[in-house]
Structure formats: C-alpha cells, structure tokens
C-alpha cells in the first residue's frame, strides 16, 4: 500500500496529463486545469512545510548558540513580510510593497549583478588555449564578443556579419543537437516515472 498507492496516483496523473495534450475537448481542458490547480495548491502547502522546516532548523541552531544574530535576522525578515501584509495589505504604497521595493528587490538585483564580476573572473581563467577544443571555444567567444561591441559595429559591418553567421549556423546546429538529446533523455525518464520503474521519490524507510 505504501508503495502501490503513490505509484497508482503517479500513473493516473501521468497518463491523464499525457493524453490531454492531444485533445482540445472540454473534458481534456478540464483535466489540465484541474490537475494544474491541484498542483499549485499542493505546491503552496509544500512551501509551508519548507518554511516550517526552515524555522525549525534555525531555532535549533539558536538554541545551540550557533550564529544566533544572523539566524535572528533571517527569522525577523521572514516574520516581517507577513506582518506588514497583515497590517497594510499587499497593494501599492503598502508597507509590504515598500519593504519589497527598498529591501528585497535591491538585494536580489545586486546578487544578480555579481554575475558581471564572475563573468570577468571566469573569462580570465576559463578561456586558455590548452588544446584544440579550448582554442575553438576561445575563438568563438572572441568572435562574438568583438562582434557585439557597439564600437566594432560602427567601424566595420563585417564583424557583426561573422558573428551572426557563427551564431546562426554552427552554433545553432550544436544547440539543436543538445536540445534533441535532452528531449530524448527527459522523455525516457518521464516514461520510467509514469510506468513506476523510476521510484526515486518513493525511497526511504
């Protein structure tokens, strides 16, 4: 029962979602909408479980006196957002949106912008012409980099053309090869899951 019921649920959901793909019939659309709704709702609950686990771990660490100030900051942030939402709602000009725009959003954007630095350090380290493959990697990167600097476009029209060619033919061909491979790999994995052969998620105990 402990194994069989989840496998049956997985199979039914899988087959229904597979079949609905091919059908414009209202019943099929309803299947899609319903399962999709269930999926979203279950996800929201798992988020609650994740948050509960997060809080539990943090409290445990605090009780052990480990990183107490940082853990408290984290928990305070976690509590702050719902509290603000309760006080002033989540519309524009609410404290919740204020905290989002002035605290959360700038930090997220800044972490994202760290990428600029990491792109630089990776370029310095990762493009050394060690062998034939590395030379090709380097050459392709340089061609595209140079072709996309706004100045080169003003100097000559040839460079953007070369860049365009590299991107649209040899590079595109390899990308398609990768995509086809991933498509096949995903398909077989998904099929194993539906057939109940792949039981990774049922493991334990």
């Amino acid at each position, binding site marked *: 029962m402990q194994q069989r019921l989840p496998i049956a649920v997985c199979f039914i959901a899988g087959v229904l979602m597979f079949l609905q793909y091919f059908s414009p019939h209202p019943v099929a659309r309803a299947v899609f909408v319903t399962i999709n709704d269930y999926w979203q709702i279950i996800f929201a609950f798992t988020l609650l479980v994740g948050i509960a686990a997060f809080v539990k771990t943090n409290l445990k660490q605090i009780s052990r006196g480990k990183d107490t100030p940082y853990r408290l900051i984290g928990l305070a942030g976690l509590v702050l957002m719902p509290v603000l939402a309760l006080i002033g709602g989540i519309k524009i000009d609410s404290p919740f949106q204020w905290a989002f725009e002035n605290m959360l959003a700038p930090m997220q954007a800044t972490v994202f912008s760290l990428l600029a630095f990491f792109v630089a350090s990776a370029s310095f380290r990762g493009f050394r012409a060690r062998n034939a493959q590395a030379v090709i990697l380097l050459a392709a990167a340089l061609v595209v980099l140079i072709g996309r600097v*706004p100045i080169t476009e003003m100097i000559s029209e040839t460079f953007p053309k070369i860049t365009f060619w590299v991107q649209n033919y040899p590079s595109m061909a390899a990308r398609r090869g990768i995509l086809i491979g991933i498509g096949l790999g995903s398909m077989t994995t998904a099929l194993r899951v539906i057939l109940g052969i792949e039981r990774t998620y049922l493991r334990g105990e």
Partner: protein
Amino acid sequence: MTRLKTRWVIFGGLFLMITLSYLLNVRFESVASPEVQKSYTYIEDLPEGSVIMVSFDHEASSLPEIQPLALVVLRHAFKNNLKIIGVSLFAEGTAIGYRLLSQTASEFDKRYGTDYVFLGFKPQQISAILGMGESIRHVFPEDYLGTPTDEIPVMHGIVNYDQVEMVVSITDGALTVHWIEYVGSQYHQQVMAALTAAMITTYDPYLASGQLFSVVGGLKGAAEYENLLGQPGGGNRGMLAQTSAHLYVIVLIIIGNILYFRDRKRGKE
C-alpha cells in the same frame, strides 16, 4: 591566496572601468537597427488617443536592464498622447510596472484614469491572456488600486483586444511567448517585445516567422530607441560602460592566455 588576489584585481578593474565610463556620459550615435526602427515607426504613426497595452512580464532582479527599455517605450507613447493600459503577468513586475508608469506619466503631466490605467497582476498567464480576448473587464473587474474597471475613463469603449492597437510585452524571460502564441495568432494582435539582451535569440524564430512584430533588445536597443526619440536616457548612458566592459572582458581573456603560455614555456624549461 594568489587566487583571491587575482580576483580582487579583476573585480576592482571592472568596478573602476564601469563606474568611470558611466560618469563620463559620452553619447553614442548608434544607427537604429531595423527592428528598433520598426517599433519606433509603428508607435510614431499611431493616431493620438490610440490605446496600447503594456505588460510588465519581468522579475525585480532584472530591473536594471528592463528599466531603460520600459521608460523609453512609455515616454514615446505618452509623448504622442497615446493611452496606456498596464498589466502584469508576473507578481514581481506588478509594483514596478505601476511605479514606472506613474513616474513617466508625471513627466508628461498625464493623469491616472484618463490617460492611463494599471490593471495589476493575474496569475495563470495563459487563461488571463485568453480571457482578455473575450473581455478585459471580466479578467480585471477592478484596477490595481481597487477602482471598478467600468468607472475608469480610459477603459470606456474598450472591450477586448479589438480596441487595442498593440501589445508591448516587457520581459526578461519566456512570458512573451504566450502573448505571441495566443494573442498574436488567435486575436491577430500586433505584439512587440522589449526584452533583455540575453533573451533576444530566444525570440528570433518568432520574429523571422512574423508572429512577433518587432523587438527592442537590451541596453543597446534602448539606446537606439532613445536616439530616435531624441531623449537620451539610461540606455544611452549605459552604452559606453557596456562597451568598456566588453573590451575589458576581451582584454582579460587575452591576458589570461599570455600568462598561460608564459607559464607553460617556463614549465618546459
């Protein structure tokens, strides 16, 4: 430790390079690409009072690149006295969309409700997009501020996409695909995308097939558009920084290789 020191030098160089070139504020006379020109001309040729829908389909983290793009399009629309309906298919884009709209509107003395409106966010993008094809007020019974949609002057006479001249999707991801695939194909609506540079190739096939009307891509696209509009902004300002950052990366790659060959030679000796 040398590993860290090298990184500090690289990071410091990039920081200086970009900050200085940003402060210099050199204006680039870049020629507009055909795509940007096409976007500009279309909006320029719309008669005054036409309605366009602008959808903010992006996250907060990509705002740095999105903001100049959004501003230049909004400015163009307000300058030509077009009316704007703002929506958002991404929760994080909602507050930002509203702020960008009201910021631009105040530059042109436009009033909320009569010149533009922000309807807010709806989850389940596809059903929201399709729903608006039947009735916009059915999907958004009230606007972002809670006013019933029926009572908003801009919305008078607007039922669905038939009364809208164009949908502009501002995006950092794949959400515009939904606009293209549903609104473009089912409701024959012109869809224009203002998107981050990283996403340009993703939309090339749609552009080639004509499903997507036009694209304004990245800071560069924003700069070109700003030049057409004659109002230099964030895009233009960023161009020199962008160029120097690019050159900096090229130089780093070259130095990396020089060091590598020097070390290899030493190793052989």
